């Protein structure tokens, strides 16, 4: 897995993790295994498994407070085969920075054997898109630190009883935004465009990608690409959540695919300043695939059950605008004057 290393600058090298071409090439070893107690149908638990599998054994994984902390690691049991440490809700960026800084200093000073060690720090949307945004932004400026910030986005503070976050979709019912007798829509904010915001705002960051675990191999290959290219990188995963989105747990993958097919969740990567669309998103952008109406996605989920026709029309209009008017459809939200 790490026969060769790429030297980037002084004492900075990464493992070379080749792209896995198809399911038969994927490593068999798991580094996120049994020992957790996530909900049935939890897409984020699968995402953790894919992320750890893609990174391999010479990795340190850090996890901010959230579902993937509370539901995963109960004292005296752990699903993590690789070293893992909790970090505070807003600290995924800081945890990665501190871990890499320590490895780098100690290897340079001869206090630790020199080797490229993957450092991944994950956070949910509450920890990443809300509280930890500034620390992630700071981490992405350290171009000489090899680290991956991985944001699993289940579009709410799902661990604390499903409360809206800045990454929750417009109109979603949550315990902090319930529809009521007077107000039908309590959550009026449009979902933050986190991955693209970070890519646009940190031009020296070499790799930013969005993923959907319905395409497991693509998800793993993006993790491997992020870890190989070096420097600070960011991956944003949209994770359907049966409990928070209110649907039958067996439909997690299907809901995730619908998010892509309706154009709500564009799959893309930004590698060294070049945007590349992936999968169905690529075909939507080229016109080869006609976007499904957002209604097909929204009405599958109880969290949108209270939406009126005008709300669905508003939602559709915002998604249309994204694909038809944005400078880079689905990514950069500006139009030429």
């Amino acid at each position, binding site marked *: 897995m790490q026969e060769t290393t790429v030297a980037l600058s002084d004492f900075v090298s990464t493992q070379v993790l080749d792209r896995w071409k198809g399911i038969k090439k994927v490593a068999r070893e798991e580094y996120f295994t049994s020992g957790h107690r996530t909900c049935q149908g939890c897409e984020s638990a699968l995402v953790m498994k894919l992320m750890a599998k893609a990174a391999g054994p010479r990795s340190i994984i850090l996890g901010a407070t959230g579902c993937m902390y509370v539901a995963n690691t109960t004292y005296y049991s752990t699903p993590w085969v690789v070293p893992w440490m909790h970090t505070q809700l807003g600290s995924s960026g800081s945890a990665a920075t*501190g871990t890499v800084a320590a490895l780098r200093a100690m290897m340079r000073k001869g206090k630790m054997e020199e080797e490229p060690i993957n450092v991944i720090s994950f956070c949910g949307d509450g920890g990443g898109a809300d509280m930890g945004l500034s620390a992630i932004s700071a981490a992405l400026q350290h171009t000489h630190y090899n680290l991956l910030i991985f944001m699993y986005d289940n579009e709410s503070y799902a661990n604390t009883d499903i409360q809206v976050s800045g990454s929750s979709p417009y109109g979603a019912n949550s315990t902090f935004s319930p529809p009521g007798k007077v107000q039908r829509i309590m959550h009026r904010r449009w979902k933050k465009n986190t991955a693209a915001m970070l890519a646009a705002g940190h031009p020296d960051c070499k790799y930013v990608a969005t993923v959907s675990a319905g395409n497991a191999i693509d998800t793993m290959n993006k993790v491997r690409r992020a870890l190989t290219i070096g420097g600070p990188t960011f991956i944003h995963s949209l994770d359907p959540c049966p409990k928070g989105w209110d649907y039958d747990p067996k439909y997690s993958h299907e809901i995730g695919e619908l998010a892509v097919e309706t154009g709500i969740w564009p799959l893309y990567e930004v590698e060294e300043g070049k945007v590349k669309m992936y999968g169905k998103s690529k075909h939507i952008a080229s016109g080869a695939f006609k976007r499904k109406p957002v209604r097909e996605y929204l009405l599958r989920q109880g969290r949108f059950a209270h939406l009126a026709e005008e709300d669905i029309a508003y939602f559709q209009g915002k998604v249309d605008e994204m694909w038809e008017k944005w400078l880079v459809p689905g990514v950069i939200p500006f139009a030429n004057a």
Partner: protein
Amino acid sequence: MNPPKTATAKKVNVAAARAPRGGSEELISGSEAVAHAVRLADVDVITAYPIRPYDTVMQYVSQLIADGEFDCEYIVAESEHSQFEIVKHASAVGARVFCGSSGVGWLYAFEALAVTAGLRLPMVAMVGNRALDDPGAFGVEHNDALAVRDLGWMLAWVATAQEALDTALIAYRVAEDKRVFLPCAISCDGAFLTHSQAIVNVPGQDMVDGFLPPYDRAEKQLHPDNPITIAPQANEDWVMEIRRQSDMAARRARDVIIEAYDDFNAQFGRGGEPFIERYMMEDAEVALVGMGTLAMPVKVAVRKMREQGKKVGFVRVRWFRPFPTIELQEALSGVQAVGVIDRDYSFGSSFFSGVLANDLRSALYPMVNRPGIVSFIAGLGGREVSTDNVIDITNKVLDAASGGDIDDQDTYWIGVRE
């Protein structure tokens, strides 16, 4: 006098004063002295974020790095919260770390400060003591560092630049001792110490290497060769046992600190008594107690009072956590009254005293013949504590000792416009 059963008084071999060996004499501020300590300790990861007055230490640290005199990963964070979280994680991987802050900056990092102690990570930090805004004030108050006093942080207060340098070296040795593994904050009074220059002996590297062993996390190091899980959810099943371990560590810290001062005194020819400094206490009938740089005006006032035949002494508390219960009981056992000068406040607390007075009153309670304690609040917001202020304080304590009008259960604000 009934000392707590869990700790034992240990006699410290304080070496006689002699010429410092090795190193060089430099005219430097308290902040610069700490920067030299950090360099000599070969710290691996340092994070900075600006807030006056502590941030001068990072100005010196960054210059040492820029000039090639010091090798470490130096990160300017985007907030105090990140500043402390970054070094917390670096410490878990096995790096020796340094950090610091002041006033509301220290409180902005409060979450990180709590978990650093909870995780038993031996971070060493400098607090440039500063008032908590609002109203805005750059000057010294001790409430910033004192805010973490219940969490497992060891807290030292220093009075001179030399003591700041020496205490930083001692702090690394104590914090990183496996019997302790608790973070330590060194409090330096804003402006009075952080920005004031004095002649400091900066020791040579070989002397420091002989005193301070490398940081070794051993089986607790986060590394692929040691794939442990750190800080899972423990809840009611285990949190109480984990808290008890922190309690035991805080108890063990006492002997480790004594050992460290013993060695420091022997190797460097200075360092003094570990927990408290006694000034003219041999025959004192009343004693003043305080922390930090107010030692200077207090000592001047004590000498003046002595010239007038008043038997006054001073005890400077050097470590607030672990609290020197035994030493204070012993030092104050012969006096008739004690005046505690707090450069902090604890609004609404018992007798409306400051934090030091409250802890001292609690520590002296088991004594059979405990002296009365008159509590004073002075020097807030960086206001100078003058010699006259201290003489005023001392006269009140003497009055209380002789059964006068001063109430030894009350708290008096000194130098305040009413």
